[in-house]
């Protein structure tokens, strides 16, 4: 299952945190910080898998021991200024998780039209809504972008997105996330 989904920008400022287990705020923050440190020093050419940060590798079973409840893999993708991270157990496929992040970002792009970091800051609630259409309680429930966006629009109509876009573009420049082209 997926244990956590995180989004933060190049400076390590969180843009979305979703933990599928209850965790105290302090630990959440140190986890985000440690993962940010790992992501920040990786070159863009590196693969999309992170080693477990210290806070997670304590008490974790070795990866060869077969399935367990403990998270063993961290998958991330970076789009322009934002990094999307998924922490999961071994029951998820690593390559499929990369695709799942792509689905998430494409769905956000559909919702915000040329999504950029600013959209996600102001459209913070919508981002949560998109995620909860895809993943419930750490289990993937939908990977079809049409169905995901339909679910979110069913909740808030088109108005929410437009407001967010207007608000964001009113004062600040916009730059879309590149690299959204179909990935394999």
């Amino acid at each position: 299952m997926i244990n956590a989904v995180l989004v933060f920008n190049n400076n390590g400022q969180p843009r979305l945190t979703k933990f599928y287990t209850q965790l105290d705020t302090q630990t959440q923050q140190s986890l985000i910080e440690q993962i940010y440190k790992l992501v920040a020093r990786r070159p863009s050419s590196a693969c999309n898998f992170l080693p477990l940060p210290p806070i997670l590798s304590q008490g974790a079973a070795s990866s060869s021991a077969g399935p367990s409840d403990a998270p063993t893999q961290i998958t991330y993708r970076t789009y322009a200024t934002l990094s999307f991270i998924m922490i999961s157990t071994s029951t998820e496929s690593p390559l499929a998780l990369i695709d799942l992040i792509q689905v998430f970002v494409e769905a956000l792009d559909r919702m915000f039209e040329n999504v950029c970091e600013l959209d996600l800051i102001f459209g913070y609630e919508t981002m949560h809504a998109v995620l909860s259409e895809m993943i419930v309680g750490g289990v993937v429930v939908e990977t079809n972008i049409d169905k995901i966006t339909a679910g979110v629009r069913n909740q808030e109509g088109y108005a929410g997105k437009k407001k967010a876009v207007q608000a964001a573009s009113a004062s600040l420049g916009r730059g879309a996330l590149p690299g959204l082209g179909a990935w394999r």
Partner: protein
Amino acid sequence: MHQIHGPVILIELPTFEKSLYDLIKGLRNHKGGEDEYVQDCLRECKAEIKSQDMDKKATALLKLIYLEMFGYDMSWAAFNVLEVMSSSKYLQKRVGYLGAVQSFRPDTEVLMLATNMLKKDIVSPNIPSLSLPLITLPHIITPSLAMSLLPDIISRLSHSSPVVRKKTIVCLYRLALVYPEALKLSWPKIKDHLMDDQEDISVTTAAINVVCELGWRRPQDFLPLAPRLFELLVDSGNNWMAIKIIKLFATLTPLEPRLTRKLLRPLTNIIQTTSAMSLLYECINGIIQGGILDGEENLQERDEVATLCVGKLRGMIVIDSDPNLKYVALLALNRIVTTHPMLVSVQQDVIMDCLDDPDVSIRLQALELAAGIVTSDTLQPVVNRLVNQLQLASLSTSRDAPDPEADAYARAGTESPEGQRASNVGPDPIIDLPSEYRTEVVNRVLDVCSQGNYAEVIDFEWYVGILVKLVSLLPPSGLEEYWQQPQTGQWSSNGSKTTVAYRIGSEIRNVAVRVRGVRREATRSAESLLLVDNRSILFPAGSNVGIDVLGPVAWVVGEYAECLVSPDRTLQSLIDPSNTCLASGTLQLFLQAIPKVFVQLNRTWEARDTWKSELSLLLARVVDFLELLAAHPDLDVQERAIEFLEVLRLGAEAMHSNSQEVPFLLASIIPSLFEGLELNPVALSAQKKVVLPPSLRLDEAFHDDLPGLFRNVDRSMLDVDTRSTLQDFYHVPDLSPPVNKPLYESAPVEMHLDSSYQNTLGRPMEYPSVLEKKKVERRERFRDDPFYIAPGSSSGTSTPIHDVFKSTNGDALDIDSIPIVDLKLDEGQQGRFDRDPLMSRRISPRKMEVATDETFGSDDTPLHDGLAGITGGSTSSKRSLLQVDSSGLGQLSLGRNGDRDAVVAGDEGDAEMKKAMQNVEQMRLHMQRASERIQLEGTPAEGTLVKKKKSKKKLKDGDADKTERSRVRGKKKKKEAA
């Protein structure tokens, strides 16, 4: 003032408070002083959230949720979260539920108040509203909440919208994790959805995902699903689902060998045809993890599949330049290597290339793999390659470091650092390796070389050289303990965390003990590491990460002091005053080494004319050093220091005599402390296997009246006066100022050494003849026992210490009766040991003899048993962060035969639940009252609210009855099912 509205909450706001948009904008405008700004906002939010206006409340909550993301606590707002959750407007409700997801923790108690509201929302006709509790419950669920909501959630499984059905299935899974009964009741329905061909694909996928999570806990329960899963795998054409099904099959095949045969064809088919790399990879992975390659039958077919898989994996590494594929391919190869090492080692060339990959994640995987496939032929090139890597990395860091000393080192190592960069670093641009990786490399090198008791190492001189080099390549980091792999962890003598440096030291010690052929070289390497002058060269500059290596190294230097190049300089380094600040574990080993090296030095000096002045000078310096440690806070260090201090002081006293000969104490007695049998490695489990002699009864008391015995001894030994002094010593607090005198001088009791316990007992002393007879008997008994020293062979094994004691104590002390493991050594090895090191270097590499752990009997008790008790036990029970505990499901049976006892257990569970519900109800009332009280005290205008609450309370009581009834209904259903 112009006001821009919150972007998502479409609420018209009064003009004086901030929307989320204002908050974010404000945050951006207060760069530097953000915390102050946030504190201001939090204060505002605290006021706003108490407002009667639901819009204001919801906006305040949204702001709090946003700030929570940055680590600002909002647990105090839990009750307000509930208030917003109960809003009638959907978008406000959504904020409330989001607040619950993001901020509720296991200790959030207000959740109990939410039961009825959640019930109401679950059955809402509006799909978005109905979805809110379904997506929120997984985050906040508790056993009691799960119990009371279960019937309502199960009813959602038959909702007309697939969106609701798929979310419900997942929600039920999370309910089952805290309340396993949930799964038992809902499984038949979930199964129906899974089996239904007409079901929406999203719902089927969700069900498969849930089954995949459950699968590895109880694979036997899901075997009956195999035909349907098979059908879905072949026909669905949905890659997401196919991946999950393959993952699920990997846990099922070990239980049902027939599945293997059935799966082999479609999986091979997918591998050969699919264009989706993720699916291809999972197929290969499934074949490996499902043990499809492991069986005995159909060997040819299996080998074909294995070759196909490895070939595809090779393709992923070589052909595609995608680092992700490289990484997962190595991951898969790592799994294959345990069963098919030969197949993997054919791919050695590509794996070795990955060792130099710019990506550290890939390197780590390749490293693990390389460790799995090394043979004695490939070990040296692989390790050399890794050490070179580290050398480049440490060069780059020391070049970057502003520390002049480090620069000097870099220059000393290579004539021109710039030239070095141009020639060596050119082809490999990534030299800035993270220190965790470097630590891991060092650990791996040690693992690989030491595996199977150095089975793969041919040239031990090379290995010792590598070990010394590794010390200087240790990364300057305090993080290293975190990155210790649990399986590689050896344990250090002091039980604390083992650092890499300590491991290197232990390896040098291991080699010195086990491989006699290189003992001299190993000892000299240890010596070079120990010398104070060398520390700036052989240790990483500017940090003390390598310092833990010193402890084991000191032991080697002491134990094999006869191999030292310069015992003089070694001793100087051991007693260097700067050593006093070393860790206590290291100091203990230093203290043991000091007298040993001293004895060696003494021996070499004996022939000289000036021995006397030199020796007294040296003694004085050693005594000085030991005095520094005599008051060390660590008791072990203190004790050892004082012991040797006293002995050496006696030696120094003996030196004062005019005799021109070395005093007997220094020449014979002190050396004899350290002579004797050579120490050999002994297996951890060996001690447990020592068979107790039948005559040894550990449980029997020595004497029926032991206290009386001691009383008698006291009485006869001490006259009345001394006894009272003794009692005073123990029972009267000493108020006099401490006497500045050595302790032994102020000792209050004179010991009567000549009185014997036997005499005071009144038992007749055993006559010498009796003693002799017993001795002969004992010898007879142990003559054939290899673990006892035969008296005849005593010339080789008996040591001067025996003679010393014999001369003082006579034959009354029966040394021979003390069991000593006979470690008779091979004469042939002795010869090799004395060979000229230069000679031996020329004929290297040669196969060394490596001493294995000594033990007896078969080694049937695995080593880990002992270790687990010491180290493993605590780590295995420790739960990882983020972990969702599904162990409760392990006991749950979904099969038919399990139902009967399940009902019984369910009844018990019901009784327990009833009790829990009562508690919950009480708690709920209590908290409700508490919150009412607060409202009353705070704002007097709350009168209406209190009334509302009261009516709510009645309603809740009614609801509780309903819960009771619905639960009964649930139980009935269960019985029908049985």
